[in-house]
């Protein structure tokens, strides 16, 4: 965009500035307006899943409902508890929203990349990690025990689930050889735009693990313990009202949306799809944007579906799930990803190995024999690991569900 402006006759620094301002405005406005209608979408979808209609009075099909809600929150009283730490209480939603908006900077919109960082993948995770600071500030600054409990729970959850989330990305980085989202999207463009990572055994498991861990990072059901309303009111948001509450709400929805975008980019090929390369140019870019948004909103629909079907986990179950289920599977997935890379791409990744073992017959992934071996091998490893760990977890759960009479009598178990 900056180049086009320079051609129009602006000075180079001015065109860079204008281009950046346009991009930032688009992201900010698109993000917040998109989020408003995302709430409408979620409420309608979950209503139909629960056999009711949802908001349908304001505007056609209730489409103007978010606007009326926005006006409502803006005119509400903005109350701060008297004994609260005023500055921290005020800054908490700002930190939350700031961190979320930052993560939108690196998201590739189809073939358009606002910023192409070398460490874009890590950047997204790091901005997600900043959420925990905002949560802690909100919990502590409110001077309310429910808020503090909710904040502590939320932070413990975020920190625990960050580990499987980061490690679920490692297979993708291994297969691509880069942490830039642009390179990751390019690497999934084989087979006429359908070479998405999710179609390989490694990518499938990685996708499932990453999406699950991201649900917890975005505090979606079944992992919405920080705001478990039946236990701790609204968690760290208890003492927030009016616009500050709306800012929390906004940042939550925007981070959920960012999770969908990132998952679509990492595993579902981003803007790749049949016909994008054939069209090329502006039309191809538009098609890739449509593909990208379709994939992301399909993922968001899955989130809503999960919210409508899965009950909330208990705190100890939540931690056990992260450390005893997700983490081992993620480690196994890294192992099978390295087998995958070793079988398919070793000549590209490690040229030194080519010197020792000689070059493979063809370098690309369409070497069907090697591809078949890699698929079977990684499928066996991953399926075996999933079966084993699920069995172990089940046994553990059953051991904790039932208590024998002797254990009851002793009060021990």
């Amino acid at each position, binding site marked *: 965009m900056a180049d086009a402006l320079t051609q129009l006759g602006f000075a180079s620094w001015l065109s860079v500035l204008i281009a950046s301002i346009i991009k930032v405005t688009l992201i900010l406005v698109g993000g917040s307006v998109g989020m408003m209608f995302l709430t409408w979408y979620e409420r309608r979808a979950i209503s139909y899943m629960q056999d009711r209609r949802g908001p349908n009075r304001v505007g056609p099909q209730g489409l103007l409902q978010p606007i009326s809600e926005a006006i409502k929150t803006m005119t509400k009283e903005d109350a701060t508890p008297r004994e609260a730490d005023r500055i921290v209480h005020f800054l908490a939603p700002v930190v939350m929203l700031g961190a979320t908006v930052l993560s939108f900077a690196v998201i590739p919109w189809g073939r358009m990349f606002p910023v192409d960082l070398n460490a874009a993948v890590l950047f997204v995770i790091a901005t997600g990690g900043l959420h925990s600071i905002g949560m802690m500030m909100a919990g502590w600054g409110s001077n309310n025990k429910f808020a503090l409990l909710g904040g502590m729970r939320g932070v413990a959850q975020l*920190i625990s689930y960050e580990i499987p989330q980061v490690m679920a990305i490692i297979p993708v980085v291994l297969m691509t050889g880069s942490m830039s989202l642009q390179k990751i999207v390019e690497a999934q463009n084989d087979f006429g735009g359908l070479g998405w990572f999710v179609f390989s055994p490694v990518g499938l498991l990685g996708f499932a693990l990453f999406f699950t861990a991201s649900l917890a990072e975005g505090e979606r059901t079944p992992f919405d313990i920080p705001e478990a309303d039946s236990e701790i009111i609204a968690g760290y948001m208890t003492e927030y009202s009016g616009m500050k509450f709306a800012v929390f709400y906004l940042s939550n929805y925007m981070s959920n949306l960012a999770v969908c975008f990132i998952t679509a980019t990492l595993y579902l090929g981003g803007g790749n799809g049949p016909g994008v390369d054939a069209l090329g140019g502006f039309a191809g870019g538009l098609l890739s944007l449509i593909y990208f948004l379709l994939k992301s909103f399909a993922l968001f629909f899955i989130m809503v579906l999960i919210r409508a079907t899965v009950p909330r986990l208990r705190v100890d179950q939540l931690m056990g799930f992260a450390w005893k289920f997700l983490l081992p599977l993620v480690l196994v997935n890294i192992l099978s990803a390295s087998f995958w890379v070793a079988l398919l791409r070793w000549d590209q990744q490690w040229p030194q190995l080519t010197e020792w073992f000689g070059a493979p017959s063809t370098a690309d992934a369409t070497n069907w024999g090697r591809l078949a071996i890699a698929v079977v091998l990684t499928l066996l490893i991953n399926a075996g690991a999933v079966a084993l760990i699920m069995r172990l977890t089940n046994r553990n759960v059953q051991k904790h569900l039932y208590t024998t009479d002797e254990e009851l*009598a002793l009060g*021990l178990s």
Partner: protein
Amino acid sequence: MNPIAIGVFIVIALLTLGSGIMVVTVRNIIHSALWLIASFIGVAALYLLMEAEFLAVVQILVYAGAVSILVLFAIMLTRQVTGEGVRVVFERWWVALLIALGLFGVIVPTLWQHGSTWEEASKLAQVGPAPVEGTAAAGLQVATATEIGRSFMGEYLLPFEVISILLLMALIGAIVIAYEERTRRRRVLTLAEELALKKRGIVEPRDAEGAVVALDSEQA
């Protein structure tokens, strides 16, 4: 470096230093931890200014996102968080000053030594062409993930492994400290289970635990 970069550097450095000073002078411990986060982020911004994207992101991920949260958790587990009675300056402040000066005395000569290569690199950057590989100027560009990974797995393999073992030992130590013996640990009974116990007229679970503790103390 061009003047804009120098200006940005001065602003970020002042902000980082300022929040660093706030860390040690603020009376509220939580506030000082929050200022610490601010200074971490300032350091990340400095890395970004040096075009070390990977380092900057890792700085935010590890320090601002994890270490500072651990600090906050630890503070919240202590009794006195705020309070006017908290003393900021202790009697042995001069020991801390000596240590800080010593560290400064190590860092400055090191930087001084590398100063010439730094200038060389910035001159090369101003002239235009990328620094030739193998020269000192190229050695300064250890910013990318690939370079860092190579140096971890190559040149600095031994320190890297030693630190890993150190962290592992710390992990095991934490588990040892936090570990309770399985026999002594009692699951919190649900209301239904407690009712079932009462119905059968069996001893209260609290008494059972008390008995276990008493037995232990007798043995010891």
